[in-house]
């Protein structure tokens, strides 16, 4: 590649026609230049009507929401019961529960600093909280080989600062 005055240049090359048969109709269009484009942005992301869940995590309390019509308890919370279209009420749950399914992830997502700090493998557990009706997905911190469907777990609260408030909690095995 000759010297270029394009600082974002990745590559310049002459491509071969791999798929177009004997005569390449795009013969005059085979010089290719690849450059890098950047896009960095931050969002002012409101947690909206779900906010109290996160605020209470900081107080060491785990909240779901309860539908006044069908009595279903949502954890994660839903401000609106999708079955009844009723506005729900906050309800504290004890934070204990049972693993209903899980996956041990060997490649971390890089979604935020909290996840980046986790050591792989990471267990993503779907937990039916005692008193709840839906499954709450979160990281279960324990030896992956000990995890099984039916395992008893509880919510633990983070002691060090976190970037995203969902990481104020995680699951750990419940010793009963």
């Amino acid at each position: 590649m000759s010297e270029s005055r394009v600082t974002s240049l990745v590559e310049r090359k002459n491509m071969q026609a791999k798929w177009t048969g004997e005569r390449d109709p795009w013969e005059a269009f085979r010089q290719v230049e690849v450059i890098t484009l950047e896009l960095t942005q931050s969002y002012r992301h409101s947690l909206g009507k779900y906010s109290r869940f996160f605020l209470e995590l900081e107080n060491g309390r785990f909240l779901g929401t309860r539908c006044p019509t069908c009595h279903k308890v949502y954890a994660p919370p839903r401000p609106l019961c999708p079955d009844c279209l009723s506005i729900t009420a906050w309800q504290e749950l004890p934070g204990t529960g049972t693993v209903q399914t899980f996956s041990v992830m060997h490649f971390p997502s890089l979604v935020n600093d909290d996840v980046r700090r986790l050591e792989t493998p990471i267990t993503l557990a779907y937990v039916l909280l005692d008193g709840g009706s839906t499954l709450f997905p979160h990281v279960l911190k324990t030896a992956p080989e000990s995890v099984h469907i039916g395992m008893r777990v509880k919510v633990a609260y983070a002691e060090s600062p976190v970037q995203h408030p969902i990481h104020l909690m995680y699951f750990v095995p419940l010793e009963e």
Partner: protein
Amino acid sequence: MTDRTPMVIGVGLTPFASNREDCNVRDLAVEAVLDCVRDAGIENLDAVEHGLTSYESDHFNRQMTLGAILHDTLGLNPTPNVRVEGGGATGALALRTAWAYVKSGLCDSILVYGCETNGKSIASQTANQLFALSADVDWEMMVGGTYTAFYAAMMRVHMEKYGTKREQFAHVAVRNRRNAAANPYAQRPMEISIDDVLNSRSIAEPYTLLDCSLLSDGAAALLLATEDWARQRSSRFAERPPVAFTATGCGTDTMRLGDRYPHLTNFAGKRAAAQQAYRSAGITNPLEEIDVAELYDSYSGVEIQAVEDLGFVPEGQGGPAVADGIFDHDGALPVNTSGGLLGRGAPVGATGIAQAIEVVQQLWGEVIPERQIHNARRGLTDTHAGIGTICVVNIFERQD
């Protein structure tokens, strides 16, 4: 009044590849559409009354309003355009939308084209993050979940409840990549063994690398029109067996897997979509009455769940049925003859259209002999978004 059921007039495809850096997303659409024009036996696009852009991944391109850009690039102005997006189901939802446009009389002909640069334009770890934006970001993604893990968690319950085995879904990973070897346009044909799948590195247990589908660059186009339009405009319409897009079904499910508790093993939205499509097409025994199908094998085990939800076998029996070879090329109902998402590839906006193209070409008898299913008269495509969050089932039938 003449029947307005849309006929398939022509199809066009680019090869699917991990890196088509000789093309940007516009160039890919152009290649597929030129191929479609040629195949349809029409001189140009002047008589086409509507364009429909099938495109999902805005974050993969530094260009929004891709519907308008592509429509312009293809010289379709001033005809109307609509862009359709429905996650992984985008291509199939695009065709479903086009079906309604023709059926309703809004237009007599519509060019549906989908394209995507999901291959190497963004690093695969970033790509997985961007796709994760189509999960419930606040509750599933921020904790560190990945799509592979969501699917894996479903499969674990399927294994626990029905005794489904890793070897059974590995069969899908092996077969679809082998099928891809008979498709010159496939991204990743491979001759591998079940042990190769089981021993490849674990991504999210129980899924290994070879259980996972591909990130791809590619485009696909399909021209739908009424029979009257086709007879007047297409020089090839009378040359080959007429194939109609006879029925379409769509169903949905919750974003989060956990909200489906206690029903975690299968795709309820897919079941609903299939039932609608079958009702509309008059199908009562799909395993007997469908000759060829392209199923959404985003992960190998998903095909096992799909054969159950599409009613080919009862729930829980997908694993043994797949391992018995019922859905292999020489089986009772060959599926993913193209290679599927595992072997052919998955440029999202093009995927559902490419699935339809494989089925239509099978019905026309126009795929290469090693891949051709003899005397196929009715075919189905199964496409979904998320973890079965939006599901679309489309049915194509020979009319002769």
